């Protein structure tokens, strides 16, 4: 490896933006349902199981006495989500399902986002070593560790929320009532307005779902890219000569620290926003016009 020239900046970024998928190469078409991104699946399912395990442990060891730190943290979290749910969804029966859902969404997305805080090259390098040891070409050992920086995952989550919204629409208003609302809100009951109403409703559902998923994806993707650029700046240290070398190194450490600290805010905020919007959208399904 030492004798080879390193990748150029562009090659480095492209390499890091390629998923480990079932075809073994970069995805060629924009929409291709035959391709599975194995890395996103692995990390999201893994972190999902970890979430379940974590909360299960907290519930198992819960005491009514003086709580430990971990239990106190989980209690604060549960109470926060439960308060938010109470403010938005007024039907108690739905809240019994929706509040735990919101909690799961929050913790799960937070953990998936938190993968961004690992050093950008840590897991890809490990995977490269494993892949190389197994006899593969390390240049094709792709790996992306942040599942929420994959549009498939975030849109999958938002479509899941959409399906729950539709389910509550039917459950609360009845199928007939919901169809009636589709054709009579927002403009009125006049038969001439029915197609316009229906169109508006469809646009509303589509816009809600797409912006819901795109928001999380955009934030995480931009964050991941900035981390890569900072890593590149550190990489340029080796190539730089004279004073620019140490300066680049200092810049790398400074920029990395600042961005990582700012990113702690972003990942929490985005997980919180995703949870809040999940609650708001499901709450909207409960309101009749």
């Amino acid at each position, binding site marked *: 490896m030492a004798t080879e020239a390193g990748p150029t*900046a*562009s090659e480095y970024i*492209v390499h890091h933006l390629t998923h480990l998928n079932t075809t073994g190469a970069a995805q060629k078409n924009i929409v291709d349902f035959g391709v599975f991104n194995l890395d996103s699946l692995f990390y999201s399912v893994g972190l999902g199981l970890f979430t379940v395990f974590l909360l299960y442990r907290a519930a198992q060891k819960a005491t009514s006495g003086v709580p430990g730190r971990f239990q106190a943290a989980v209690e604060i979290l549960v109470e926060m989500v439960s308060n938010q749910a109470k403010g938005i969804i007024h039907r108690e029966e739905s809240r019994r399902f929706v509040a735990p859902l919101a909690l799961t969404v929050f913790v799960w997305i937070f953990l998936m986002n938190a993968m961004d805080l690992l050093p950008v090259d840590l897991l890809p390098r490990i995977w490269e070593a494993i892949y190389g040891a197994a006899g593969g070409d390390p240049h094709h050992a792709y790996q992306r560790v942040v599942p929420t920086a994959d549009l498939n995952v975030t849109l999958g989550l938002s479509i899941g929320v959409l399906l729950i919204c539709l389910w509550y629409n039917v459950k609360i208003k009845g199928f007939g009532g919901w169809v009636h609302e589709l054709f009579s809100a927002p403009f009125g009951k006049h038969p001439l307005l029915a197609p316009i109403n229906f169109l508006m409703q469809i646009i509303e559902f589509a816009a809600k779902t797409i912006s819901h998923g795109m928001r999380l994806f955009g*934030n995480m993707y931009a*964050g991941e890219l900035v981390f890569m*650029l900072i890593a590149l700046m550190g990489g340029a240290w080796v190539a730089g000569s004279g004073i620019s070398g140490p300066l680049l190194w200092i810049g790398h450490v400074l920029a990395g620290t600042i961005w990582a600290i700012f990113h702690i805010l*972003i990942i929490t*905020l985005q997980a*919180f*926003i995703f949870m809040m919007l999940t609650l708001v959208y499901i709450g909207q399904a409960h309101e009749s016009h």
Partner: protein
Amino acid sequence: MENVLGFVALASGLIIGLGAIGACIGIGLMGGKFIEASARQPELMNELQTKMFLLAGLIDAAFLIGVGIAMMFAFANPFVLTP
């Protein structure tokens, strides 16, 4: 080829710059209103703070999506076909 590269670089700058203008004005307006409101009614501060952060995330999102797209244009340029 060079033309395309130049235009894409300009476009990336515009995406980030214009997005930043919008996001900054939005955050500034909202932050100002929040301070104003909590000066009038300090007891509402905690409640408003949650909502302010939520909205800050919403305002920031469009800008950050733009940054992501601009970065992608700059480093993994889809308009220039790499051989």
